[in-house]
C-alpha cells in the first residue's frame, strides 16, 4: 500500500498505545472511523455508491458502479444461474505509485478479495434469480470499484460501498414468452422492458455481508486501522459477516507475521459480536443516502452527488 514512512519512535508510540487500549485518534480498539455513504451518482449504471471511511473528511474513498448485462449462455457455464464479476481499480489519485501499471498487483488482490466476499452464493444474493432462460440467457452483474483515495481500511470501505451499490441496484423487468417458429418448435424468448419505472431490486441484497478488518499491532488488534496503524500492522484479517450472523469469507492479509490460532478464534468471535452494530450503522447511513436521492429526483437531475460536500 501507499508507503508511509514512520520513525521508530512513532512506531513504538502506536504499538504501545494499542497495547494499552489507546489509539492516535482517540478511538477504542473496536471502533470504526466516521463513514459517509452516498448512492445513485452514476445514472448510466444500474446501481452506484460512494463510501468514505475516515474522520474529519480525510479517508479511504471508493466509488462503486454496478452494471447489469444480458449474456448468452455457453456450454460449460452454470445452467440456471447468473454471475457476478468483480473488478477493482486503484486510481493514481490515491498514491503516486499506482500510476501506469503500478497498481496491477493491488488491483488483483482487492478484486480477488471482493470476489471472495460477494462473487458467489455466500453473498446471499439469489443467483438463480439472475437467470433469464435456463441454458439460454442470464444476467451478469459487473461490479466495478474505483479506489479514489487510500487512508487505511480499503477492504472494509470496498465491501461497504459494494453492499450499498448492490442494494441500490435496479434490474429492468424481463418478459419471457414462448414463441412457436415456422417448423412448429416452441422455444422461449425474452424481452427486456425499457422502462425506468418498471424495475426491481436484487433478490437477497439485504443478506449481503459487511466486512471488518482486524489489524494485529503488538499483542493486541484493532478494527479499521488508520494509515499510520497500517504501517505497523503485523498481520491483518478481513472477516465478512452476513446479517444472519454467518461468516461469509475470511482472508488473511498483511506482511510480517502469522496469526496465533488462538487469536484467530478470538477475532472471529469479536467480528460476530460487532457485526450487529455495524449493520445498524450501515442501514442508517443507507436510508439517509436513499432519502437524499429521493429529493434529487424531483427535478430532472443527472443524479449527481459529487456536487454536494462529501
Amino acid at each position: 500500500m501507499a508507503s508511509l514512512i514512520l520513525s521508530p519512535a512513532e512506531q513504538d508510540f502506536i504499538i504501545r498505545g494499542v497495547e494499552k487500549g489507546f489509539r492516535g485518534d482517540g478511538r477504542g480498539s473496536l471502533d470504526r472511523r466516521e463513514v459517509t455513504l452516498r448512492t445513485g451518482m452514476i445514472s448510466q449504471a444500474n446501481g452506484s455508491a460512494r463510501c468514505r471511511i475516515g474522520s474529519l473528511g480525510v479517508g479511504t474513498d471508493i466509488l462503486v458502479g454496478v452494471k447489469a448485462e444480458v449474456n448468452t449462455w455457453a456450454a460449460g457455464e452454470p445452467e440456471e444461474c447468473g454471475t457476478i464479476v468483480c473488478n477493482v481499480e486503484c486510481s493514481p489519485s490515491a498514491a503516486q505509485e499506482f500510476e501506469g501499471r503500478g497498481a496491477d498487483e493491488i488491483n488483483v488482490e482487492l478484486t480477488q478479495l471482493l470476489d471472495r466476499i460477494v462473487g458467489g452464493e455466500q453473498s446471499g444474493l439469489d443467483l438463480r434469480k439472475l437467470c433469464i432462460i435456463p441454458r439460454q440467457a442470464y444476467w451478469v452483474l459487473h461490479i466495478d470499484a474505483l479506489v479514489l483515495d487510500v487512508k487505511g481500511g480499503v477492504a472494509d470501505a470496498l465491501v461497504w460501498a459494494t453492499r450499498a451499490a448492490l442494494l441500490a441496484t435496479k434490474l429492468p423487468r424481463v418478459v419471457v414468452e414462448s414463441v412457436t417458429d415456422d417448423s412448429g418448435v416452441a422455444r422461449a424468448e425474452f424481452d427486456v422492458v425499457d422502462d425506468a419505472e418498471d424495475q426491481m431490486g436484487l433478490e437477497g441484497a439485504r443478506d449481503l455481508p459487511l466486512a471488518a478488518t482486524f489489524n494485529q499491532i503488538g499483542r493486541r488488534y484493532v478494527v479499521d486501522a488508520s494509515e499510520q496503524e497500517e504501517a505497523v500492522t503485523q498481520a491483518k484479517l478481513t472477516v465478512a459477516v452476513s446479517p444472519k450472523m454467518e461468516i461469509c469469507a475470511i482472508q488473511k492479509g498483511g506482511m510480517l507475521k502469522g496469526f496465533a490460532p488462538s487469536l484467530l478464534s478470538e477475532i472471529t468471535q469479536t467480528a460476530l459480536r460487532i457485526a450487529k452494530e455495524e449493520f445498524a450503522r450501515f442501514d442508517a447511513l443507507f436510508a439517509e443516502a436513499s432519502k437524499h436521492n429521493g429529493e434529487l429526483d424531483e427535478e430532472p437531475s443527472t443524479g449527481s452527488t459529487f456536487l454536494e460536500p462529501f
Partner: protein
Amino acid sequence: MSRQELISPEGLRVDGRRANELRRISCRASVLNSADGSAYYEQGNTKVLVAVYGPREPRNRSLAQQDHATINVEFNIAPFSTSERRKRSKGDKRLLEISSFVKQTFEGAIQTAIYPRSQIDIYIHLLQHDGGTLETCINAATLALVDAGISMMDYVCACTAGFIDETPILDLNFVEESSIEVPNLTVAIMPRNGNIALLQMESKLHSSKLEDVMELAVEGCKHIHRKLDQAVLVAAKDLADKLSN
C-alpha cells in the same frame, strides 16, 4: 446508409436543445481531500473527476527538467461510464491520445518555468460518457489546477462544435458525435487574449463554413469560462469562510 434525424423540422436536436445551446454545466472544485487540487465537472451527462498533485518531486529522477516542470497526465475511463460496459487497458490508444492532448494543452498554459525540477500530475477519471470527452477533461483540469494553486497564464476553456444540415451546432453529444457525417471540431482557448490552445477536427467540413463553426465554438468557450470562473469564486469564498471561522 440511413441517417438518423439529428435536427428535427422544428430545429431541435436529439436532446431537445437548439443549435447554439450548450448542455447544462455544473462543476465544483475541491471534491477530493488528499489531492492538492481537484474538480468535478459535468456537462449534460458527461461527468469527469480530476485530481491534481504537485508541483512535487518527480517520481522518476530522469524525468526532471532543469528549467521547467514536467506535466504528467493520466486519463482513465471507468468501466461503468458507457452504456455498454467496457474495460479498457492502460495502453488503449484512445486513452493515450486524450491524455497527450490534455498534456500538450496545459504545457502551454501552466507557467512551468517557475517550477523547475518538479512534476505536476493530472489524473482524470471519466465517470460517465456522453460525448465531448476532450472538452470536459480540459475544462475540469483547468478548474482542478486553479484549485491546486498552480500558476497559469489563463484559464483554458474548451468546447466542441459541429455542422449539421447547413447549421453550425454547439457542444455535440454522444449521438451527434458518433454520426459519421457530422464534423466534430474541438477548440480550446485562453479567454483573456483569445489565443487558441488546442484545435482538433474530425470528419470533413467545407472551408467556407469553418469560420462560422469556429466562431460558435469560441462563443461556447467564453460561456464555459464564465461558469468556471463562478466555480472558482465559490471555492474561494468557501475557503475564506472556513478561515474566518
